[in-house]
């Protein structure tokens, strides 16, 4: 039983909890056992930086007690109460360390909770722990973590995507049914694509950023990671909604995303294929699965149209100016003065400048330093207009392209990433190749619109077994429900005659399971 319950969807877990068929403690223990079995040991996924056994069990016991007591309090429980969740270690939590994947915050524990964490705690979802990521969310492979690489459960010699590789791998490997991610240029969607899971980047402002350690403030967005569209939608509903602590938070009512995900009806839906996000640079297998998805949607009554977004050609360049510019500023606070790592120079005078310098030299990894240098340069007097200023103009053009595209289509579609998961180490020394992985996900961040990645089948890159391919849907800002509707429909179409993709992941070698909750 314990092994199987980790393979339920979050919605199924919620239903069984409500029906009294399982307890939250059982669920949490099963997941802790699974973490023990695959996160270290032979599989060595290393999806978690920190596992919060006691806290998760305490929350589970609380939920079980409320349910057992019945009455109004039990009635008032959130539908997901008792369903465990993992949190990307970029999101601050009281009582658990938050490292951002960096040596800079090695022993740091936040004195406050992120707004999304407050909401999760209020809804009583046991938090299993904090998941691995590229340092400060900078990367597409989770290889840039100071706490080791995370491995892809489909092939442990390959990357799980990034920066949210830990959350995606944890969900794909049944270590958690739900996780939180953050998406600045694809950090939720691309890991979702390469691990066969579902990840949403909500509309900018849909989910509060308060407590998400900022990389690029105008691009960052917290979002859900799950195995099914419905689960992602349910988690999105829980974390969305206005937050007075985030000035960029939207005041809108939260739509019924779960219901949209369950619609599975695309008849009459106009789906726009973005001309610029296919063809060159995309692996054959990825394009084949993309075509099959289009065929399935067309067959189900969707109207497939092609849309032209000429400015997308410059999206990657604009992104790699805006993102590092904002990141160079956001990361200035890590200086060893107030919190986190402090490193004093080995010799010479102990001045504040030299302590700040030594701290930043030792505390940040290479990719972080690369982006700080890029961003500092781009914002410098005399270069601002040519770099940051021009990039902002490109951003406006991309927003116009999207606006025009959404005149012709209700949602847009593309492969989420140009390739399946690549081998660990392959692009570590080639930052530009790494950056190209985000070419299809970045435009949504630049425009602030919602996007989702759902599994679109398996494909081989010609060098090994078949691996997951992700399909991305995009919708206009504030129309997140549309991506859930389209993604839910594709998911249903592709699993009509087969098990869902997430259920087909290869068995992982397991370490001898320890008893959870020690």
């Amino acid at each position, binding site marked *: 039983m314990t092994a199987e319950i980790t393979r339920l969807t979050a919605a199924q877990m919620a239903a069984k909890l409500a029906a009294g068929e399982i307890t939250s403690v059982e669920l949490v223990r099963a997941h802790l056992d699974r973490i023990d079995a695959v996160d270290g040991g032979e599989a060595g996924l290393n999806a978690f930086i920190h596992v919060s056994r006691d806290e998760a069990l305490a929350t589970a016991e609380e939920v079980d007690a409320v349910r057992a007591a019945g009455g109004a309090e039990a009635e008032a429980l959130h539908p997901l109460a008792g369903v465990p969740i993992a949190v990307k270690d970029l999101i601050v939590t009281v009582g658990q360390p938050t490292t951002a994947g960096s040596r800079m915050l090695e022993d740091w524990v936040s*004195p406050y909770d992120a707004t999304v964490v407050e909401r999760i705690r209020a809804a009583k979802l046991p938090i299993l722990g904090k998941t691995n990521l590229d340092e400060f969310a900078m990367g597409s492979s989770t290889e840039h973590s100071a706490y080791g690489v995370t491995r892809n459960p489909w092939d442990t010699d390959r990357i799980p995507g990034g920066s949210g590789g830990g959350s995606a791998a944890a969900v794909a490997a049944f270590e958690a049914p739900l996780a939180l991610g953050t998406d600045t240029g694809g950090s939720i969607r691309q890991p979702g694509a390469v691990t066969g899971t579902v990840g949403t980047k909500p509309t900018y402002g849909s989910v509060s950023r308060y407590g998400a350690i*900022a990389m690029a403030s105008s691009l960052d967005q917290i979002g859900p990671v799950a195995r099914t569209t419905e689960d992602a939608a349910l988690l999105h509903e829980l974390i969305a909604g206005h937050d007075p602590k985030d*000035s960029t938070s939207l005041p809108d009512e939260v739509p019924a995303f779960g219901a949209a995900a369950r619609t599975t009806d695309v008849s009459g839906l106009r789906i726009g294929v973005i001309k610029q996000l296919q063809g060159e640079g995309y692996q054959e297998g990825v394009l084949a699965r993309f075509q099959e998805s289009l065929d399935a949607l067309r067959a189900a009554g969707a109207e497939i149209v092609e849309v032209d977004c000429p400015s997308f050609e410059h999206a990657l360049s604009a992104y790699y100016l805006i993102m590092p510019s904002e990141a160079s500023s956001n990361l200035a*606070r890590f200086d060893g003065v107030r919190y986190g790592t402090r490193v004093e120079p080995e010799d010479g005078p102990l001045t504040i400048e030299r302590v700040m310098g030594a701290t930043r030299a030792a505390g940040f990894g290479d990719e972080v330093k690369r982006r700080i240098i890029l961003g*500092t340069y781009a914002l410098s007097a005399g270069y*601002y207009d040519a770099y940051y200023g021009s990039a902002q103009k490109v951003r406006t053009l991309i927003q116009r392209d999207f606006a025009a595209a959404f005149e012709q289509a209700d949602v847009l579609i593309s492969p989420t990433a140009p390739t399946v998961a690549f081998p660990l180490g392959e692009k570590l020394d080639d930052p530009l190749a790494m950056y190209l992985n985000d070419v299809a996900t970045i435009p949504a961040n630049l425009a602030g619109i919602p996007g989702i990645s759902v599994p679109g089948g398996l494909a081989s890159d010609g060098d090994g077994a078949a691996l997951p391919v992700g399909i991305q849907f995009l919708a206009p800002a504030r129309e997140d429900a549309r991506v859930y509707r389209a993604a839910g429909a594709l998911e249903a179409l592709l699993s009509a005659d087969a098990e869902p993709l997430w259920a087909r992941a290869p068995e992982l070698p397991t370490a001898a399971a320890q008893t959870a909750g020690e």
Partner: protein
Amino acid sequence: MTETLPDAAPLSFEDALEQFDPVLGFEVHVELNTATKMFSAAPNAFGDEPNTNVSPVCLGLPGALPVVNEKAVESAIRLGLALNCDIAESCRFARKQYFYPDTPKNWQTSQYDEPIAHDGWLDVELDDGEIFRVEIERAHMEEDAGKLTHQGGSGRIQGADSSLVDYNRAGVPLIEIVTKPIVGAGSRAPEIARAYVSAIRDVVKALDISDARMERGNVRCDANVSLMPKDGDAFGTRSETKNVNSMRAVEHAVTFEIRRHAGVLAAGGSIVQETRHWKEETRTTSSGRPKSDADDYRYFPEPDLVPIVSSPAWIEQLRTTLPEPPAERRRRLRESWGYSDAEFRDVVAAGLLDEIEETVGSGASPATARKWWMGEISRLANARDVEPTALGVQSATIIELAGLIDEGKINDKIARQVLEFHLDGEGSPAEIVSARGLEVVSDDGALTAAVEKAMAENPDVVEKVAAGKLKAIGALIGPVMKETQGQADAGKVREIVMEKLGVS
């Protein structure tokens, strides 16, 4: 390249003005008195335990985000309107980036190319009543930094053994008011400098948007000075003297910088564009850090904040809340009270305009209000080492005391004692007079006896008075007062003496 000659001796002020025209510019920072900070809900309070008025936002903790204090925006708009500025219907914050340990995020959230208020003016009144118009370039919102205390060494960061930082002030709302270059000040430049800072302080006090206490740093002035040759038309290189935080210091700093610049220029040197530190003890400035227009703060729009949109309706509504401009108010009050210029200037300098206005408004005559506030109340405050306003004297008390004097129940001297007893909590003036038996002795019997005694003891005085020297009566009043423990009515004593000697 010209030698900079930093050590050239300053010229005398007169010599400097003979050769050069000074050009001034001011950046005045005003700390707002909002309940909370500019971008967080942490309290904005002075004097508390270090690092207690802080939140994740003002400590720059990872993940924290700013939210604009609407009250601070309102204050900024009202100040902008009071400075006759245009108010931006939409403006943004920017990040001004530099690494310094008093700045928790290592950037200051400020306004750069989109200030909330711009292009205004302020009329300042000089000592002789002349009005000088200072053009305002802009007024923008920003946040204050924390406070560093350097341990060991000279007290500056260089050479200190360690430094302590208090973030209670970090994030306190500031408005920075920047003038356009002030030309044509000539030899009145120092006076204009003082009058300008004084006028800004008056405005923010009248608006009640700041505690405006310069000694606490609520109003801080950076003074820019440059010189141009008498026959020239191009501005010279400027120096920026930082944190000149009293009106007198502003006047002195401008004077010194004019003399210093003139000394360097007259010796054939050139001025280094730099910040200068003001030294109160020697009334001089010393070299700070070089500053150029190319200082690179890597400004960019603050992405965590949305633009501030101020509707014309809101701006107009705020305009209706503006107080009477302080200079106009002073003119009105001076005329209506009939004080001499000197009397009025003293009242303004003592900071008692509001109190006297209130007392007059409560029914006292302007002369009575001035007499009490500028006289006994100020003297008592001085003796007790507090501000006159801190004594808590009510207008009603002053009116009551004046009434008792007018009715002849007490004299001035007794009244002063009654005030002191009143401040010590002994009740209303009338109660004190009655309880302590202080009513002046005016019953003819007791008084006549005392007068007769004094006359008997001072035959020479009596002789003089009898001969018509009425002024000599004063010499009899002293002994009578002594006899009656000061409770005699001096006018009555006079009457009795004159009656007895048959003079008039």
